[in-house]
């Protein structure tokens, strides 16, 4: 992929987890109980074997090469294996099969502030954290003033970190991390912490790092950040490498595939888990919701959309007894539960909607070209005036990526519609300037 010398080479990497290993730990008594149960297990040894079911391949045959100075993004749904890949590359966990060769000093940043101790002062923590991240003492000495200045906590340098606000702690921790100078930097989702301003600062620093010609592997759910930082991206799905190429292509493929297809259809138990409020005046339920789904234009379930695509929300429900006045309310909220969009089944009808017993599906189309880059939660309420209400909260998280209008790709806003603009000279003194019109 690059004419530069290869610095990271990954060949047929596989990582297996036994499901039992995902449990935090075992107590001796469990082991003893297991030993007692073992004879029983031998008796009902099934043909398929327990092995096949208890094993998960977090990485399943991943191979790629990375040239010096390349900035690589790793994208994929939760559980795709992104973090596992970083952990193997940072030697935190060992692979089950395959081989990795890395040339150069590796710095991994899977968390900000690893090893911070609340009893130690800011100064002490800078040294401790720096060392843990792989900096030499002389290196920390040399960059100490820079680190302090970047963090903006110079006044509290000799105060125990436990007296810091959480914001100050994060700032200090990031300042240390930002001054790491490895040849190969592995970064996992660290930009997801802190407030918006902090995130901007982090992104700015990441831009600097990538411009210095350092080799970077960057994991993030923030596709906009991946797009702006990385020239190349890998798309992982269930431990497999689906795509290796330019970032836009990888993101396109990720969204096209309908990242989180399973997550876009919620029914049964998973639907029950999302009940935020259930009010049943009267004796028996009048209706039952069976399924809520988010679909694309072709009716395929997905939770990731480009802003130039329609979003359909379909609610399936069964009416058990005649309901005199029924409506469904769909609300999209942002991360702070602030409603961004709301729509109701009765918005266009006059008078109450009466439903007879039977199965129904109500579907709404949210038009294209409405949103910018936005992550929105889908909330659905089914309401039978005035008796019964069921609220489902956070049913599906929608990931919308701004597709751009023409050459404009700045999309960080909930709403980013294409609206008509007019620009013309306003003051008389400028009257002779030609007016510009744009639609």
């Amino acid at each position, binding site marked *: 992929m690059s004419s530069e010398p290869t610095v990271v080479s990954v060949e047929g990497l596989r990582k297996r987890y036994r499901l039992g290993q995902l449990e*935090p730990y075992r107590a001796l*008594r469990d082991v003893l109980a297991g030993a007692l149960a073992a004879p029983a297990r031998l008796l009902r040894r099934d043909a398929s074997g327990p092995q096949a079911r208890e094993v998960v391949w977090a990485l399943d045959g991943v191979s790629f090469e990375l040239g010096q100075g390349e900035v690589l993004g790793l994208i994929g749904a939760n559980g795709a294996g992104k973090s596992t890949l970083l952990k193997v590359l*940072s030697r*935190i966990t060992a*692979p089950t099969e395959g081989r990795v060769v890395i040339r150069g000093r590796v710095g991994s940043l899977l*968390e900000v502030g*690893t090893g911070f101790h609340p009893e130690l002062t800011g100064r002490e923590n800078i040294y401790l954290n720096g*060392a843990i991240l792989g900096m030499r003492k002389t290196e920390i000495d040399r960059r100490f003033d820079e680190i302090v200045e970047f963090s903006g906590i110079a006044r509290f340098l000799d105060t125990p970190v436990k007296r810091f606000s959480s914001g100050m702690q994060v700032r200090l921790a990031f300042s240390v991390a930002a001054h790491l100078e490895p040849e190969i930097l592995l970064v996992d989702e660290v930009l997801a912490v802190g407030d918006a301003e902090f995130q901007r600062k982090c992104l700015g620093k990441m831009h600097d790092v990538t411009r210095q010609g350092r080799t970077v592997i960057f994991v993030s759910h923030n596709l906009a950040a991946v797009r702006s930082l990385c020239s190349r991206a890998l798309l992982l799905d269930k431990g497999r490498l689906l795509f290796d190429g330019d970032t836009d292509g990888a993101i396109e493929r990720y969204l096209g595939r309908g990242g989180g297809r399973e997550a876009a259809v919620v029914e049964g138990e998973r639907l029950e888990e999302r009940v935020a409020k259930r009010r049943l005046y009267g004796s028996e339920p009048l209706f039952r919701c069976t399924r809520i789904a988010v679909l694309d234009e072709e009716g395929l379930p997905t939770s990731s959309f480009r802003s130039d695509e329609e979003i359909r929300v379909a609610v399936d429900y069964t009416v058990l007894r005649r309901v005199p006045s029924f409506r469904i309310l769909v609300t999209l909220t942002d991360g702070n539960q602030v409603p961004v969009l709301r729509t109701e089944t009765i918005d266009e009808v006059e008078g109450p909607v009466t439903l007879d017993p039977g199965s129904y599906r109500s579907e709404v189309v949210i038009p294209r070209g409405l949103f910018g880059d936005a992550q929105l939660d889908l909330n659905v309420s089914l309401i039978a005036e005035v008796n019964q209400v069921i609220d489902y909260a956070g049913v599906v998280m929608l990931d919308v990526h701004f597709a751009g209008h023409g050459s404009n790709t700045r999309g960080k806003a909930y709403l980013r519609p294409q609206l008509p603009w007019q620009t013309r000279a306003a003051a008389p003194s400028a009257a002779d300037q030609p007016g510009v019109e744009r639609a």
Partner: protein
Amino acid sequence: MAAAAESRVTVIQPPRGWGSINLRELWEFREILYFLVWRDVKIRYKQTAIGAAWVLLQPLLTATIFTVVFGRFAGLPSGGVPYAVMVYAGLLPWFVFANALTFSTRSIVENQALVTKVYVPRLFLPLVAVLAGLVDFLIGGVFLVGLMAWYGIVPPLQALTLPLFVLFLVVTAVAVTLWLSALNVRYRDVQYTVPFLTQAWLFATPVAYSALVFPESVRTWIGLNPMAGVVQGFRWALLGDEAGGVGAQVLLSAAIVLVLLVGGIAYFRRVERSFADVV
């Protein structure tokens, strides 16, 4: 960055068989070892109200109790030295060992972030807890010197070998805690058994009493308990050898420690691979 100058090649492969120790890697990461020990020492003295005083008070009170109970009431022999000095000379290494058991056993579980979020050689974690305890040892050692001066005891020439026995103590503590800390990751009950283990081990070791209480025919075999060899070695270096046979005891203990250490490293390196997945 001087990329070419420092071009180091790391190969990551599935581990096979029993792990061996990678000394070159440990050396590369030595600064982290230093910083972690420094952190543990700072925290230990910062969090307590009277700080260093505890380090003296604990063995002092224990030594007093043992002297009264075993020396006075039970009238056990002490081989010509004051009972209190004999007990304290044994308690000094013992407390380092007991603290190592307590802190090292939990070290991997408690430093979870260091295991799951960065790569530091995991062998360091139990080692750090042992080394941090040596500061206590230094403070307690100064007190022992004072105590010996008070009783007018001049240490024999072999006191010069004391550093060797300190090393022996550290290696013994590391050998045992490699096993315990690694086992504790998988079976969290191990840390709860440590207080009982420590107590039983204390009474099985000639700390509160002299090795003279054993008949001469079996005295060599107390060396099967590695801490017996350490304690006997300390007493020999500081107070001389009234009873005789210390050499054999120490050699036997050293052999046991070697077996524990080699096995401990192999076991630790083997299970270390799954620490990040299990902790």
